[in-house]
């Protein structure tokens, strides 16, 4: 039986006779892959960061299509909101926003693309044998915060606490690494005094 979705595309609800992909998935995958390619190829690191944020947004949209609503929001907040801002902040701090990377030799690029292409070919060839499996009808409420919170606080309680410890140690490590040693601190003080 036929019906129209909100994009006006007629599709059957009987599955597997049509192999055409849904429009949403196609557009989202297109955006994801293009912006991921731009992350890798862009010379300017700030452009890379912005393209990576676009990639994270489209991956969040994929999560919503996959019924993982809470993951979509967390992905936006943690990745696009926190981690990428940290990257951008470090880029600005180190004043690397201009195109500072030396041109790589062609040989290096060829070697890298051969290596990555081999991985791609091997993985797709391995998955080719797995056969075609159609996604089942979506099950409701799995990805909502009610269900995820219950699972997190019962089955995954110990890993949850351990990840808290991991966070604390990472925070302490980052602060320790980022702290200046005494000598350079005195230098900064000297400079400040001179400026004043």
């Amino acid at each position, binding site marked *: 039986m036929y019906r129209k979705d909100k994009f006006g595309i007629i599709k059957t609800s009987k599955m597997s006779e049509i192999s055409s992909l849904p429009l949403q998935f196609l557009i989202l995958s297109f955006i994801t892959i293009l912006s991921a390619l731009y992350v*890798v190829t862009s010379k300017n690191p700030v452009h890379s960061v912005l393209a990576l944020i676009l990639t994270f947004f489209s991956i969040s949209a994929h999560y919503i299509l996959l019924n993982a609503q809470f*993951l979509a929001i967390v992905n936006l907040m943690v990745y696009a909101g926190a981690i990428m801002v940290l990257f951008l902040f470090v880029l600005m701090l180190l004043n690397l926003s201009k195109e500072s990377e030396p041109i790589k030799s062609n040989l*290096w690029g060829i070697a890298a693309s051969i290596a990555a292409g081999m991985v791609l070919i091997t993985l*797709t060839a391995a998955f080719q044998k797995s056969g075609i499996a159609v996604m089942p009808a979506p099950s409701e409420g799995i990805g909502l915060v009610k269900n995820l919170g219950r699972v997190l606080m019962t089955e*995954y309680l110990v890993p949850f606490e351990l990840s808290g410890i991991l966070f604390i140690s990472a925070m302490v490590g980052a602060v320790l690494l980022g702290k200046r040693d005494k000598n350079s601190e005195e230098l900064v003080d000297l400079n400040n005094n001179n400026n004043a």
Partner: protein
Amino acid sequence: MLNVFHNLEISHYIYLSTVLFSIGLFGVLFRRNAIVLLMCIELMLNSVNLLLAAFTEYMGDANANGQMFVFFIMVVAAAEAAVGLAILVMVYRNTRKTDVSFLDQLKD
């Protein structure tokens, strides 16, 4: 919206995240700027996250074990980004460069 799944196969998600992973791998091998290297690692982690979420949906797992793994991967990625960027700032302070091809003092 959710009737998208009537035409989708799990293999589409597998291929999508394989492509994303390969792009990230290519970036790690190709780029020299250490910050871009870290971003490519984030890209690879995200492709794995996408695949975990797809398989959670595919298996119809009521406990959402795959999504739990995505959470913990996000935790590890956040910690990794913080420590990696701190190391990077320290390296920049000592060498005035973030180019990984200059960081070869351990070779000698």
